[in-house]
């Protein structure tokens, strides 16, 4: 009897695998193999963490924004990103992990968030480069999630991608305004680009063979790391050069023969070290997240007692 049950689970898992690899969708209440649940949960949790950690470098600039309109726009972007965190943590909770646990794991450094949010910001130009290029790199991965096999995630990504388009445009607007400014402002943009180029090239992760990428196999995501980086380069290298900026990589060029961008190998060692909490601002940002979490405790208490 036990043997028969085991075989049934294997058959179900195989049927599930066939279902998702042929483009089938999964809803929260559908049966799914534990491994799929764990993978999709981990993916969404990391995404949610990145949304709420990603606002910390930007919030540092709300009080220093150069005009009221910029202040409003930056505040709106921060509000959007935290909202994305809310939507994504909700999806993850439905997959079985309580929110408190996810926040505890994040603050204790047991779970990760994107590399780009572990770095400091130096000038207002960083805010422009982050909103324009970091959000652009992120939206490419996010658009590849619109066809995610986990349907609640795919539907949520429609709203998120729609909001992200304002972030990118606002970032581009900041960069263009500065490029229309003084020599000093243009230099600030170039310096910011020089600072962010390395982390941007690392952002999508090292090239991983398709057969080794579980998230691809389960159709959680639809594009591999290298493909996303190639798309990013194809879209943004021309736009960056168009502004008269230069890209700090002497080896960067488009190879007509292979139809691919060539570039200096990004430092995967730096990526690994940064996302495991050893980036220049990793601990400071986590401490700030913890401080806010603790200071907000009375609000959570009040909400629960009021209802």
């Amino acid at each position, binding site marked *: 009897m036990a043997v028969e049950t085991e075989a049934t689970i294997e058959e179900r898992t195989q049927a599930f695998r066939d279902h998702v690899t042929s483009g089938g969708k999964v809803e929260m209440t559908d049966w799914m193999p534990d491994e799929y649940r764990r993978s999709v949960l981990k993916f969404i949790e990391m995404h949610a963490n990145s949304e709420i950690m990603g606002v910390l470098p930007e919030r540092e600039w709300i009080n220093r924004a150069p005009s009221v309109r910029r202040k409003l726009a930056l505040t709106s972007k921060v509000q959007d990103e935290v909202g994305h965190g809310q939507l994504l943590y909700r999806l993850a909770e439905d997959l079985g992990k309580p929110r408190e646990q996810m926040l505890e794991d994040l603050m204790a450094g047991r779970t990760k968030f994107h590399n780009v949010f572990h770095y400091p910001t130096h000038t207002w130009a960083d805010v422009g480069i982050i909103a324009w290029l970091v959000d652009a790199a992120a939206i490419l991965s996010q658009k590849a999630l619109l066809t995610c096999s986990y349907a609640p995630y795919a*539907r949520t990504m429609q709203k998120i991608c729609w909001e992200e388009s*304002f972030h990118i445009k606002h970032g581009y607007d900041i960069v*263009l305004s500065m490029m229309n400014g003084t020599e000093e402002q243009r230099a600030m943009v170039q310096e910011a680009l020089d600072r962010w180029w390395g982390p941007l090239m690392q952002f999508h992760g090292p090239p991983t063979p398709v057969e080794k990428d579980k998230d691809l196999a389960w159709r959680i995501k639809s594009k591999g790391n290298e493909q996303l980086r190639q798309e990013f380069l194809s879209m943004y290298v021309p736009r960056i050069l168009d502004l008269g900026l230069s890209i700090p990589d002497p080896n960067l060029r488009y190879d007509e023969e292979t139809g691919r961008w060539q570039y200096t190998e990004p430092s995967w060692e730096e990526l690994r070290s940064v996302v495991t909490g050893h980036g220049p601002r990793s601990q400071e940002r986590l401490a700030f997240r913890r401080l806010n979490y603790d200071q907000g405790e009375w609000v959570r208490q009040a909400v629960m007692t009021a209802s």
Partner: protein
Amino acid sequence: MDMHVYEVFQQQKEGGALVHSGNIQAPDDRLAIHYARELYGRRGESVRLWVIPRDHVLELTDPDLLKPPFDRSYRSVEGYRLRDKLASVRAAREGS
């Protein structure tokens, strides 16, 4: 027996959004499911239905909250016109 109204949400294709399709009246949850199937699923046009007691639906329509009269263009893609800015960056670049 009291009749209750249930709102029906229909998913027409796998993975799609659940879209409000109408409502039905039924004395209890079990029959509500049955009626929903008869009205919104009898031709195989749905892959999933959500049947929700109307009393459980919370509604918000207040325009002061949803369509406030302030300028919110700074929040939207339409709030930024880049064409002229881009043209002048290019002109300056070519001029130099």
